[in-house]
């Protein structure tokens, strides 16, 4: 795919827009692509979730934290990127009807795939409440974008923007009475674990997990997670996920 836009959302988070046929082939929000790093010494592709899809482009949000993601974020407009995908299973939404409610919970670099989800739920006339957690105000991104699709509540660890605390603080303090028909989450391990515990028995609660991957397609068994109540089998995050029902996984 061709890189058509590369802009900084925060000090270390980049938004990359890629153009190509792959964009026409993304059936579900929450799927990911596997990007080849343009360096011969870095062998493993980087799994990056798709933040949004628009005709012939996909948008990816990448935090430049290690050498591979830094190299990806340093790509220039017009360059070709080697993209494998779309991979994995995303967030199911078809079961929701007009005026039902969905609660979206995101943290940090886990937030991007929720954007396409929010858009599609909004298009489906579902009422969307979005709770996002960031370390600090300076780390905030996509606030305006999410506000187009629903009510947005934000928590920052240091209290520099809206609620001080975590997304759980917002759920406890501001959304006690919300009974959502569907819950969707993606964030760091702590957030995902909280969501799995809190919504274990919710009939439509989904969480997108992250794990170090090698092949990205289910062949190498690197990125597994524990299957609930099953001592013999586990699940592959890349192939069976990355989105799972809260009832089927343990973290």
């Amino acid at each position: 795919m061709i890189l058509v836009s590369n802009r900084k959302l925060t000090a270390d988070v980049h938004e990359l827009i890629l153009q190509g046929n792959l964009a026409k082939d993304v059936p579900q929000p929450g799927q990911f692509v596997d990007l080849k790093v343009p360096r011969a010494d870095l062998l493993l592709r980087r799994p990056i979730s798709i933040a949004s899809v628009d005709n012939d482009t996909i948008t990816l949000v990448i935090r430049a934290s290690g050498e591979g993601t830094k190299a990806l974020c340093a790509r220039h407009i017009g360059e070709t990127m080697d993209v494998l995908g779309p991979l994995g299973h995303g967030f199911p939404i078809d079961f929701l009807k007009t005026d039902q409610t969905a609660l979206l919970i995101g943290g940090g670099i886990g937030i991007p795939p929720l954007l396409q989800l929010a858009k599609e739920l909004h298009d489906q006339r579902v009422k969307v409440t979005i709770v996002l957690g960031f370390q600090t105000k300076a780390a905030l991104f996509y606030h305006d974008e999410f506000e187009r699709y629903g009510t947005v509540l934000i928590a920052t660890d240091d209290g520099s923007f809206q609620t001080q605390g975590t997304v759980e603080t917002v759920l406890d303090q501001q959304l006690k009475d919300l009974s959502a028909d569907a819950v969707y989450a993606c964030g760091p391990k702590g957030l995902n674990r909280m969501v799995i515990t809190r919504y274990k028995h919710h009939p439509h609660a989904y969480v997108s997990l992250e794990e170090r991957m090698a092949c990205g397609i289910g062949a190498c068994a690197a990125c597994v997670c524990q299957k609930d109540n099953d001592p013999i089998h586990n699940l592959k995050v890349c192939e069976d996920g990355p989105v799972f029902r809260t009832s089927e996984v343990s973290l």
Partner: protein
Amino acid sequence: MNRLSVTLPGLDLKNPIMPASGCFGFGEEFAQLYDLNLLGAIMVKATTLEPRLGNPTPRVAETYGGMLNAIGLQNPGLDEVLAKKLPFLAQFDLPVIANVAGSTEEDYVEVCRKITQAPNVRAIELNISCPNVKHGGIAFGTDPQTAYRLTKACKAVCKVPLYVKLSPNVTDIVAIALAVEKGGADGITMINTLLGMRIDLKTRKPVLANITGGLSGPAIKPVSIRMIHQVSQAVKIPIIGMGGVSNVDDVLEMIMAGASAVAIGTANFTDPMICPDIINALPQRMDELNITSIESLIESIRKERHG
């Protein structure tokens, strides 16, 4: 005449390229990307008697020019491999090399005894070199006597040729190679991964949950080339080479080192099309290097070594 074809015990290969065990599952995922009939053969994921969950995560870590893995032999167990995984591969014109692992000699023998019956299994690869399990695996591959004994016991129940996969984590790999040859091995596959480790500077803890893992990728190719060169001079049985191969030149270099066929491992992760790409690139590169056929190259190297 097919200038890419090679013949090894139990294996008539249309070309010398096959995916290495553990990097290709049982072929189901890659079959969605390309026609597996293109491959010379397939080395499927290690199979143990009982299903195994493998190690805790993280199971992989990147290193310069390589990667560490500590999957820990996760596999669905012999029964499911026989009932589902091998039958899936039967739709292809593709010799299967079944990788067999275990914790005890009895485990290995039992898996060999059953998997050798599967109609598309043309050879068995005895995995005495997995560095990522507490019991078995590499323990069978670091002592010549133990390697000899296990090879002999498994050979007795195998109805197809038996290859033994050697570990590079030994002082003298030739001694192990000679021991498995004496034990009745029909061939050798080499090398498995090199034991390695990485530490996360922020947490000050090992990156891998298993602490150590097996190093693979281009970083280890000089080691695999050296070891294949050494072993091919000492044994008469053929070698399927592997260890850091990621392009057509690496394949020819490994054959020049003494291998009769070449397996591709980690490179499948970087580029899932790598095996068919290398197969396509072979004829032109052979022309440039005045190589008439893979068989003639193997023969000329063999003559040089053994007269």
